[in-house]
């Protein structure tokens, strides 16, 4: 009996999204999203600008409330729990924001130590050891006394990852990890994600539009377009997919140009109708 329970726990997905709908005012951004992320898996959410992928990520970490649907993280539906319960779940997840979102008025070390100081009763000396370890993990050993403004873009992102790792999260979320970085630095961030995955078997969800990085880090991918899941599958499945929308995104085919004025007007009204 106990064995069966363990088995079901083992096979239970870390994160499960069911028929998720999100609206801003009267405009629905996500129209019923479904997917699951297994323990230790890296899922990449792909999509163009305005596809709703960032909204999806914000909803997954509880920054936006869905209008309907369920988000199960570690056996709790975060779409239907109180703020206190949500905060308990949030202590077990880490989020790395697009621009890093480090607190400009604190040193890098204080940034990393902040969640520990807020949520644990650890001695200051212990916190000091933990923050040095986390900074070393992301390749920023010795930078604890720097201010965020003294770091380069790539270093800021690494520091943000260190802060996200501070509470030893079980799920790590990344918003556009390579945005605004040159290819070499971006490759470094990809390597960091791969290391976290290999060394800690961490469950990772990455939102990006960078194909190269997605192919490198993903176990599975979800392609989102206009608020719908277009395709979902392993990297190989996606690569060999024959779905036109998937092919268009993966082969980087441009949207057909509008040549006639009437078509352009039709496109504009369509756009206006969609954006309310």
């Amino acid at each position: 009996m106990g064995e069966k329970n363990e088995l079901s726990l083992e096979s239970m997905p870390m994160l499960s999204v069911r028929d998720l709908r999100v609206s801003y005012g009267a405009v629905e951004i996500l129209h019923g999203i479904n997917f699951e992320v297994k323990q230790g898996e890296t899922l990449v959410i792909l999509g163009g600008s305005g596809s709703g992928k960032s909204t999806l990520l914000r909803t997954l970490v509880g920054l936006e409330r869905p209008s309907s649907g369920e988000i199960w993280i570690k056996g709790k539906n975060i779409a239907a729990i109180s703020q206190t319960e949500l905060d308990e779940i949030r202590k077990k997840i880490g989020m790395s924001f697009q621009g890093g979102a480090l607190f400009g008025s604190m040193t890098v070390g204080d940034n990393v130590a902040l969640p520990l100081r807020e949520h644990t009763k650890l001695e200051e000396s212990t916190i000091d050891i933990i923050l040095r370890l986390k900074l070393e993990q992301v390749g920023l050993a010795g930078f604890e006394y720097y201010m965020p403004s003294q770091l380069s873009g790539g270093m800021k992102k690494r520091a943000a990852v260190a802060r996200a790792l501070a509470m030893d999260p079980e799920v790590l979320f990344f918003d556009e990890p390579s945005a605004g970085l040159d290819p070499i630095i971006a490759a470094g961030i990809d390597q960091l994600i791969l290391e976290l995955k290999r060394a800690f078997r961490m469950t990772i969800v990455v939102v990006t539009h960078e194909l190269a990085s997605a192919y490198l880090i993903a176990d599975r991918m979800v392609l989102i377009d206009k608020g719908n899941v277009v395709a979902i599958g392993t990297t190989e499945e996606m690569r060999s997919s024959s779905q036109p929308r998937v092919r268009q995104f993966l082969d980087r085919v441009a949207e057909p140009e509008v040549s006639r004025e009437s078509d352009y007007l039709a496109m504009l009204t369509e756009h206006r109708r969609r954006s309310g």
Partner: protein
Amino acid sequence: MAQYMVTESVTEFFSQTGQSVTNGFAYIGSLASLAGRAAYYVFVGPFQGKPLRLQRAVSQAMEIGVRALPILSLITYFIGLILALQSAYELSKLGAMNIVPRAVALSMSRELGPLITAIVVIGRSGSAFAAEIGTMKVTEEIDALETMAISPIHFLVTPKFLAMIVMLPCLTIWANFMGILGGALFGVTQAGFSWLGYIQASIDSLFLRDITTGLIKSIMFGITITTVGCLEGLSTGAGAEEVGRSTTRAVVMSIFLVVIVDLVFTGLFYFVGGR
């Protein structure tokens, strides 16, 4: 046709008015909600295992209070001098120059001390709150706090709130004193008072009530300024220009609401407290 257009513009007028009134109430509602939550973290939270961030509150108090002293002293000193000049203009005709200290002391401690202090603090700190929190909103730092399960209100607003309700009354007392000193400069050079005599005359003309009503008002001003500044910061949209807009709105709304609060409390003291 003309009839129709008139009807339409009348309808338009009423719907616009209704809209503005609704928005006004909604704004007051969000202010009250934010002030309520900040007050909860200051007065109730510490007893429920949510400790106050005293270190942050002290550094805010330093910024709001101590750093404002030089400019506040200068302004209120001149205001006191101006008050003495203006009242002497009328009082000299009646040969009543000896009540200049009374006029200055009363108008400073009952009205101008709290008000001028509030306006200086709005310019220095209310705007800074909106800019600081607005920038944090734009750079996703507020979101980062939330995903780390740290309440932005507890972390950012509460220390400012605490610092403000402590520092604004202190600044007000200082402002009253500087105003009286300003008046004394006139009294001594033009009205034949000695320094000590002028100060003594000022103190004699003040009742405790004159000072406490001013201080109660200044606490209310402090709550208003912090809440407006932080609310404007927290409701900043995307983009750097939005930060500028929130900052401007914070200053304008704070000045407006401080005057309203002033009116309400002055009226209250007049009718309830017997002047």
